[in-house]
């Protein structure tokens, strides 16, 4: 019952099981067929399912997405991998002008079940072209689901749900989460989209944390706990659809709100969440909501600047304190 699996292994297991369950599931991406296997998330699949179902792809990100779309029209269920989200930017035309609107413009008659995995680099001087997180962009596009799993359990369940579901999905995976472990059942299971989860109950303030910020929020909660401050941590798990109800319920309960999101400050996901809460709660909040985000800046490479650029648990603690003032 208490099988621990890393986030990376959970993704591998979900893909493996989806491929086992349906012969239509295929994996495309640069280097998916290598021993390294995208940080271990595809290792061994080519041996098990053969090179027709696990294919290396040219460094042609736009075509890769379009290939998946066309393949989906013939009944396949492609899973794409991008080693860095930055590389995937080349494919935005395919995503926003075609994939996202396919169902709509076919008058709901045609589906493209394509799953796009994309990894956000962080640390060790990834620098400005290897560390972007555009999850807010993706969540802005109608017709695309966006998963931001923070645990191995969710990574597996959401991945199975996406691959075997009917709506195109973008998976934003924090590289920093890959080695974190969690209890992960062996048999396949689903985590539905649009269902946030309360990771820790509390009463003094709500911290909505996304992806990599979830473990940091839990650490912040532990720190504050020592001072008798009780924090509720909500993990939306998917940004599109966004479970505004669970978030609002928590904020209504605690009456204080911090949103922790490791992406650029302005026009990002944190703003959407704050707005969703105040649209519903209005003046029920006892203090001003606070965002914990990256500054509106590209990523510095230097190891001396990275810690100043990326928010950590202390920034969350400080933000919570601000709401308690």
């Amino acid at each position, binding site marked *: 019952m208490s099988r621990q699996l890393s986030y990376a292994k959970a993704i591998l297991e979900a893909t493996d099981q989806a491929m086992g369950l349906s012969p239509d599931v295929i994996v495309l991406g640069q280097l998916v067929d290598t021993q390294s296997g995208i940080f271990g998330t595809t290792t061994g699949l080519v041996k098990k399912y053969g090179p027709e179902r696990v294919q290396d792809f040219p460094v042609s990100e736009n*075509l890769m997405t379009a290939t998946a779309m*066309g*393949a989906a029209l013939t009944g396949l269920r492609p899973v794409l991998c991008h080693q860095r989200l930055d590389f995937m930017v080349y494919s935005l035309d395919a995503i926003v002008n075609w994939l996202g609107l396919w169902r709509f*413009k*076919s008058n709901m008659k045609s589906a493209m079940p394509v799953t796009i995995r994309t990894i956000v680099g962080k640390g060790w001087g990834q620098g400005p072209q290897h560390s972007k997180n555009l999850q807010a962009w993706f969540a802005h596009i*109608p017709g695309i689901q966006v998963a931001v799993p923070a645990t191995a359990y969710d990574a597996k369940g959401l991945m199975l749900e996406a691959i075997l*579901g009917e709506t195109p999905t973008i998976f934003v995976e924090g590289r920093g989460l890959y080695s974190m472990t969690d209890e992960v059942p062996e048999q396949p299971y689903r985590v539905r989209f649009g269902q*946030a989860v309360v990771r820790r109950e509390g009463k003094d303030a709500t911290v909505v944390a996304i992806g990599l910020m979830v473990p940091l929020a839990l650490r912040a909660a532990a720190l504050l706990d020592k001072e008798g401050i009780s924090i509720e941590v909500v993990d939306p798990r998917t940004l599109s659809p966004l479970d505004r*109800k669970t978030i609002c319920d928590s904020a209504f309960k605690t009456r204080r709100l911090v949103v922790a999101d490791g992406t650029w400050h302005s026009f990002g996901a944190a703003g959407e969440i704050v707005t*969703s809460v105040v649209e519903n709660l209005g003046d029920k909040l006892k203090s001003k909501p606070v965002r914990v985000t990256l500054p509106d800046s590209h990523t510095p490479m230097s190891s001396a600047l990275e810690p100043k650029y990326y928010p950590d648990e202390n920034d969350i603690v400080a933000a919570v304190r601000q709401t308690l003032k």
Partner: protein
Amino acid sequence: MELSHRTITQIGHYRDMDLTGTAPDTLLKLYFQMLRLRRTEEALHQEYHPADEMRCPIHFCIGQEAIPAALSLHVRPDDFIFSHHRSHGYYFAKGSPLRELFAEIYGKATGASGGKAGSQDISHSDTNFYSGAILAGAVSIAVGAAFGFKHKRTKQVSISGFGEGCTDEGAFWEAMNYAGKQKLPVLFVCENNRYATFSDQLKRQADDNVSARVRPFGVRATQIFGNDTVLAHRTIGAEIERLRNGDGPALIEAYTYRWNSHVGPEDDSANAYRQPGEMEFWKANCPIVLLGEKLRAAGLLTDALSARYEAEVAAEVAANFKFAKESPFPTDTHWRQMNYADASPLADRLLGVATRGAGFDQYQDEAKLGPY
């Protein structure tokens, strides 16, 4: 001989059409199909402004009937066609129902895409026809469909129709590279009509020859005089045959010409982009006239038959207009449902039905969120 728009008008009157080896009824079918497409487009063109009910941009294909007619006799129902913005010819080629094209243009619920897409984004998934207005996007998706056919070892063929302008886009070359490398069963049909909107190919590319550029990517290419419908029919037939046998991909570059403005019935001649004498050359070499002459000379086409064809087509066009005009407008405003599939039958079957939390149904409509 390499073809080029720079030199093609020197042909004068085109005399190379060769009926040998093409069955008489096929020739007549080709003629009929062109006539049908021509009259359909002419009618839409004429009705556009007076009716004022076709409220979407339309890129007419008058003058470019040869390729659609030739394609229409070779594609099978399970083949896919992916078109660019100038979609009517390809929609027609796929045998998709014309009345649903009319209804789509009229923005009606009975349109091929329920009135949601219009002329430049129309699709008809029942007959495997898809289109879209962003250049090169549909070419790339066509490659993906071919990938699927090869993967599943079917004998289906994916057909991608576009203009020479689309080959300016980098996306097009990613498609060539991958199709060539993987030997995918995809037929690229480039209707080279010289212009992208008002921009001459030679203003945008070093040479007006797409074929020479795709070959080193592993894509077989043939240039043809694109108003020779019989040649188009023969060439397309041969290439599709090879594709079904695993000998892909191929490109056909058909030099042809658009008679109308780039978009809509409005006159765009103020932009003075056409070469002198060019329109006259192409009208004199109208694909319907070229084939008609040959068919008459061969005694296949008579005045009576011609009149019957015209009547048949006129009746069809009238019926299509009637259908479009009498159809209801869409009223649907279930935006979420239009954009997202909430049902997941395969996941339900393979993973069991998992219910969703209360949040799911309500996250959309904040008004319902209460009790705040």
